[in-house]
């Protein structure tokens, strides 16, 4: 991070940035302390446009800028932004310079591992979304507008209906099968086990009034993935020289496949599972 600067230059910079104890630091430590300080300040710059002149003055002082007493707000903002841009350049194009093999200074910097960020609890929109988990499970989540919430105030529970609409243009009443679940009014998501792989489902959420279901929202169409082979039938082929398609009667399976049955040890954290994916993460840390 030192961009090939000498230790004297670094000390001067650290002094301007008011880094405590810079005088006794080694070169590496100086480089890191400066870089950390700059990052802190760079984050403060987000609010620069809303700062009052007094705040701007003290900010300028912090970044080691000497400004005239007569400097206006615009002067200050300009000078500080210029300074910030030059740091950014340093960071982007810094010459590897003297590579040091040591990161020796223990840093207590907070890497924000504990997330303090809060995402909205609701987007205040009417929404019912279905996502297939696997051939026999569907996940539903939902959100309500203020208006819908108002309607629901009069009710103590939510009702989720799931319709099997495979090969049907659903009109609300023509489903093959209808399933129903009742749940607490503040529930926001649910996993539903459905009877058929490779089938189409639609859900509605609403409430019950005198034993009659009143739907409020309808979901997208959810298709559960298939989990077994189709029967042999006509095959479709394409000639790759002419791009002509042609059909052929299926001649049956040439390769006999031995299928596996799922047994035990489906624990996802086992590092030896055969699934092709992602051991990198589980192995990166000692858990």
């Amino acid at each position, binding site marked *: *991070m030192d961009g090939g600067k000498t230790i004297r230059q670094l000390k001067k910079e650290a002094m301007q940035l008011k880094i405590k104890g810079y005088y006794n630091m080694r070169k590496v430590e100086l480089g*890191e302390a400066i870089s950390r300080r700059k*990052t802190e300040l*760079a984050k403060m*710059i*987000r609010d620069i446009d809303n700062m009052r002149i007094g705040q701007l003055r003290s900010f300028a002082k912090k970044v080691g800028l000497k400004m005239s007493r007569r400097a206006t707000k615009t002067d200050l903002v300009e000078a500080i*932004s210029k300074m910030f841009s030059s740091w950014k350049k340093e*960071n982007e194009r810094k010459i*590897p310079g003297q*590579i040091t093999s040591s*990161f*020796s200074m*223990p*840093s*207590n910097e907070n*890497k924000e*591992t504990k*997330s303090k960020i809060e*995402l909205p609890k609701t987007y205040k*929109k009417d*929404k019912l*979304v279905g*996502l*297939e*988990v*696997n051939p026999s499970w569907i996940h539903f989540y939902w*959100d309500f507008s203020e208006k819908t919430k108002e309607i629901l105030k009069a009710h103590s529970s939510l009702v989720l209906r799931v319709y099997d609409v495979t090969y049907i243009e659903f009109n609300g009443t023509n489903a093959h099968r209808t399933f129903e679940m009742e749940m607490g009014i503040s529930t926001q998501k649910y996993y539903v086990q459905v009877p058929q792989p490779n089938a189409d489902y639609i859900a509605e959420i609403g409430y019950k009034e005198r034993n009659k279901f009143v739907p409020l929202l309808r979901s*997208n169409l959810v*298709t559960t*993935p*298939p*989990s077994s*082979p189709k029967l*042999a*039938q006509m*095959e*479709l*082929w*394409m000639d*790759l020289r002419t791009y002509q*398609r042609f059909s052929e009667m*299926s*001649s049956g399976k*040439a*390769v006999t496949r031995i299928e*596996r049955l799922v047994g035990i*040890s489906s624990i*996802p954290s086992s590092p*030896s*599972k*055969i*699934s*092709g*994916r*992602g051991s*990198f*993460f*589980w192995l*990166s*840390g000692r858990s």
Partner: protein
Amino acid sequence: MKGKLLVMLHAHLPYINHPDHPYFMEENWLFEAITETYIPLLMAFNRLIKDNIPFGLSMSLTPPLLEMLSNQTLQDKYRKYITSLVDLAKKEVEATQKEEGLKHKCALKYLEDFQGTLDFFESCKGNLITEFKKIEDTGSLELITCNATHGFLPLMKVNPQAVHAQVAMGTKAFEERVQEHPKGMWLAECGYYPGLDKELADQNIDFFFVDSHALWYADIPPKYDVYRPVITPNHVFVFARDPESSEQVWSAQFGYPGDPNYREFYRDVGFDRPIDYIKPYIDPAGNRINTGIKYYKVTGNVPLGTKELYDPDKALETAKRHAKDFSQKKAEQSQRLMNAIEIEPVITAPFDAELYGHWWYEGPMFLEFLFREVANSNTVESSTPHKIISKMDSVQVVTPAMSTWGANGYNETWLNGANDWIYPHIHEAETRMVELATQYEDATDPLYIRALNMCARELMLAESSDWAFIMTTGTTVEYAVNRTKTHLSRFLELYEAIKAHNINERALELDEWIDPIFPYMNYKLYSSN
């Protein structure tokens, strides 16, 4: 007639770049992968080429990986990392002089290897992408891309425009960074659903990969099972995974990496040496981490404390033996399949690239030996997707079934109690992104264009399947949760700012500096017009 072995290495890491921190532990994932996987693979390919060994394979370099490999700050940090490792290896050579002979032998080997890695990195000026491309130019390697940030498309299909943007940006990123059009695309987590082939066809993608059951449960049973490519209704070729190959390599009981002679992953000097000695080489905050110097072998099913010392020569012999074994198995399988289907079988063997080298330390050597063995076989040869496709006269038209290569084959790794909270937010952000892009499709104000592009970047970063995956597996969960929340909240902030015509240029500048992925981002990909 010869069977075709198609090895497909999926090289991917999530985008982890913290220019605002001089040291960030998770950035080490990239550095470890460069040291243990990418450079060793490149060196192995170069040796094969030098020795005139014919070989073929395909490799995906995902856009986040391409972006990280091209990033100057990360390259500089890598130099510092590998230089520090060389330094540690020197100290280890000294320290092990008074210890067991095997340890000292290992230390000398590490010093030589790390120095070689550093030299390699310097000789190509840190530009590993160009090195991969050089191998590709020989015809032995076919590089392919992935959807933009490795977003999990089966759970994105409720927002088709977001899927479109992922596929289009995945193509664009490859064109920008590799300077060629990608012929194939690896779909994140092998996640496929019927209809996705249309998006791929629209980007002129010729082929992609699926797990076996995508063909087993397809709309029409495939005549040759998973042993010949098929084509989708929108004319994209499909290669399906051979279950035998994966099992032979990775089976917990019989797989190769568990051999007692191979290096043990979990015994590392980062944990074994006294803290004062190792301090300069671990997390500056004092947390012990894996350094990459390991002296013990798998040994057997024994506690970590009783592992025996690793012998690099024995491990090498073992890798050779395993390569020979695998090659024989592939030859036998080819013969068996040729007898059954009377046409050249294609055995597709996709793997996470990082498992070779990072997890299975001897993996890159195994691959090199494998290609050498296969080159001498009369019944099987290694090949590349395009070479295979170009020799086909006809192809079966099939719609593959919805499937992934995750545990149990569907979506539960990316949708379960540990991570389902992310989808309401991600889907909402996708909806809002489409709204913004459609509303501002003709924006000319550079500030608005920058803000809109930044929105698209934050959204795509939040969409990475890696975060949901990490939440499921339970390691470094806080980092994944934090990344998801950070990108989503930056997105929401920017969205509000654009809608209120109150874009804070300095805040935007900071975001652009912190998340500089895809400088060529084009938010209009999200427009619904």
